């Protein structure tokens, strides 16, 4: 107990705790000067405290490792946990696509190439994050612009066809009962969206 109280009040340990806090929330490696500035402490004292932390957060002793990387210090996962970390980040997405993603993908698949404003008009809500998510997953990609200097248009990718098991766009389930051709379908969707008003 005596020892713990001593640790709590030790200024270096206190600084070390502040640095731990800064490192655990940092979105990028932090340079000593950044840490010193945020912690309102001198660079030398920060280096001393980092030395203390390096001893505590090291391979074999902790699952969190303090690493000196280009540009400063960052916390990373210990190597012994590499397999577990791989299982965490490589989990196949089980739920598949969100409703927003699915609707956006359907619009691009059936009406593409289409621009974000067109998608937003049909869905009745801004399409930015849904489009960005589908791009990131490699299911859609940019495909020129909507006229000179217009909005970027999007179309589906080969990965999209692979994921949905389609040999080509002609294998998309037919929507003949809704509209004759793509243009008619687009008009119908926009008309409905306007009536829905949201």
């Amino acid at each position: 107990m005596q020892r713990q109280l001593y640790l709590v009040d030790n200024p270096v340990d206190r600084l070390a705790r502040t640095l731990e806090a800064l490192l655990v929330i940092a979105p990028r490696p932090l340079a000593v000067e950044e840490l010193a500035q945020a912690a309102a402490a001198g660079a030398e004292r920060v280096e001393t405290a980092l030395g203390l932390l390096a001893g505590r957060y090291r391979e074999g002793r902790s699952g969190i490792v303090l690493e000196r990387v280009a540009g400063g210090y960052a916390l990373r996962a210990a190597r012994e946990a590499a397999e577990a970390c791989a299982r965490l980040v490589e989990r196949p997405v089980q739920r598949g696509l969100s409703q927003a993603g699915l609707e956006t993908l359907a619009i691009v698949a059936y009406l593409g190439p289409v621009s974000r404003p067109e998608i937003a008009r049909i869905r009745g809500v801004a399409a930015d994050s849904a489009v960005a998510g589908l791009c990131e997953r490699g299911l859609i990609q940019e495909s020129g612009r909507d006229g000179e200097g217009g909005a970027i248009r999007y179309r589906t990718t080969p990965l999209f066809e692979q994921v949905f098991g389609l040999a080509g766009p002609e294998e998309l389930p037919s929507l003949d009962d809704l509209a004759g051709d793509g243009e008619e379908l687009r008009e119908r969707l926009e008309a409905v969206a306007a009536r829905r008003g949201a």
Partner: protein
Amino acid sequence: MGQALAVRDLDLDLDAFEGPFDLLLTLILKEELGLPEVDVAEIVIAFVERLERREGAFTPAQLEVCGEFLVLVAALLELKARELFHEEGELDVEELDPDEAALELAERLAEYRRVKAGALWLEERLTAESDRFFRLGPAPAAPPPVRRLAPQDPARLAAALRVLAAEPPAPSLSHMPLRYPPVTQFLERFRAALRRRRRFVFDEEVDGLSRIEQAVAFLALLELRKAGEIKLGQPAPFEPISVWKAA
């Protein structure tokens, strides 16, 4: 009228209210105020005076405030003026029984009051928790996530589009008994009037219109004034308002 003056004494800071329900709720919960005693005209005047004291141009945000205020005024009118509404067939309000309307409004205010309590709790919580920091997004040294997508059924794409192509359910208008004509309608009307003659009297121009329409017309007047298109004159409170084209 004594009670009505109390409304003016409230010194309503309309900017501080989040919407008509917010203001209406505050008014009703003021112990000294009974709804039947609320003089709508006094509230309108207080609001207009506030607008008048404002510096600078009439912004869309202010127009929005006016719109919300108008809903409040309309709600008050609906509560107060049963007979009036019965006569105003063109406003579609006769479909709603006034007692039902009052109860509906009461329920909505009660619901809003609960939500407001929730918002207050969230606000306090946000302040209390503002010293909790966490990292947003991936760690700097974390391996980039691999987002593998399980195989998907193309029928889901067609189904998603069918949902988007489905006719929306007819919206219930039961909560919107208070419809009013667009402000632009009166903007055009007044501009046209001032093209024909140099001056007109507002009260004559809107004579015969419903009170809601008159309120909207008044709003249009304020907007023209803010835009510098017209000048207004009134010899004394409650006297007719004269309108001139600005030079």
